[in-house]
């Protein structure tokens, strides 16, 4: 239970960075941390005490492997999610550089040329 509470604290730190920081680069860092925390949550849901990696070693007993291995499905999905997180971060860095070029600042609250 303590483990889940710590993980929620990790999620909350990323969430705080995304919401409360004014520098656009800090916001990107906050989203990266949130991304890390969500990936860790999914992997931890699939963990079993004393579990081994879902790779059967040569000569390992098949039934014993199935009984001991951690859940492989969250791992397969998180692998996709990590790479997509990379793409999102790249796109946001490009946006931040463009904001700096057009507004000469990285302060998110200054970006108000379209304000109604």
């Amino acid at each position, binding site marked *: 239970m303590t483990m*889940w*509470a*710590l993980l*929620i604290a*990790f*999620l*909350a*730190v*990323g*969430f*705080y*960075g995304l*919401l*409360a920081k004014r*520098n656009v*680069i800090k916001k990107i*860092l906050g989203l*990266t*941390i949130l991304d*890390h925390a969500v990936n*860790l949550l999914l*992997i931890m849901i699939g*963990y*079993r005490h*004393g*579990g081994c*990696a*879902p*790779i*059967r070693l*040569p000569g390992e007993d*098949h039934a014993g492997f*199935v009984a001991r*291995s*951690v*859940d*492989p*499905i969250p*791992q*397969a999905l998180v*692998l*996709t999610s*990590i*790479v997509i997180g*990379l*793409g999102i971060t*790249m*796109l946001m*860095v*490009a946006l*931040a*550089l*463009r904001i*700096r*070029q*057009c507004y*000469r*600042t990285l*302060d998110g*609250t200054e970006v108000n040329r379209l304000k109604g």
Partner: protein
Amino acid sequence: MEPTFYGLLVFLIIGSIVALEMKDILSSVIAVGVVGLALSILFLLLGAPDIAITQVVVEIIVVTVLIRAAARSGRVEMTRRPDLVSTVLGLILVLCFCGFALAALETLRPFGGARPLVGHWYLVNAEAGTGCANAVMAILLDFRGYDTLGEATVILTAILGAVVLLRPKAREEEAEPAVVPGVPAEVAHE
């Protein structure tokens, strides 16, 4: 094994807070890199070597790009004083989030008590069905190969977006004088 998990998780939380509260952007980026590499160790201990390898590679690329962005941005002066309202509102929203998350925690099994229901079928049949001893790779590249196709599409879209945003033609259309790379805007104006 358990104390290692707790130690690493506490390290991740402290590293994240340091990354967000540091005044210097370059130090923040490096702190995020440290968090990502510690996370890959935690993945390895949680029985996910494939994820750990991917995490190391991706983290290094992300830190390289962010350092480039931080170096490009030079010294950033926040013109206005930090407004208390957004910080307080942010903290209230984060506390709401924590409340909902703790409520959702009740439905989760205790840590380490996972019973893979669908995963069990894959563990039993992956090797016989695909000839791959690694169940994760059997799922990723064989049973659910279209997921990887979708992933490639998302990456392609992100690259297209970045190319459109950063193409040099758009820079020439700017009415304002071009920023010399690496020189802070304050200097360029003078």
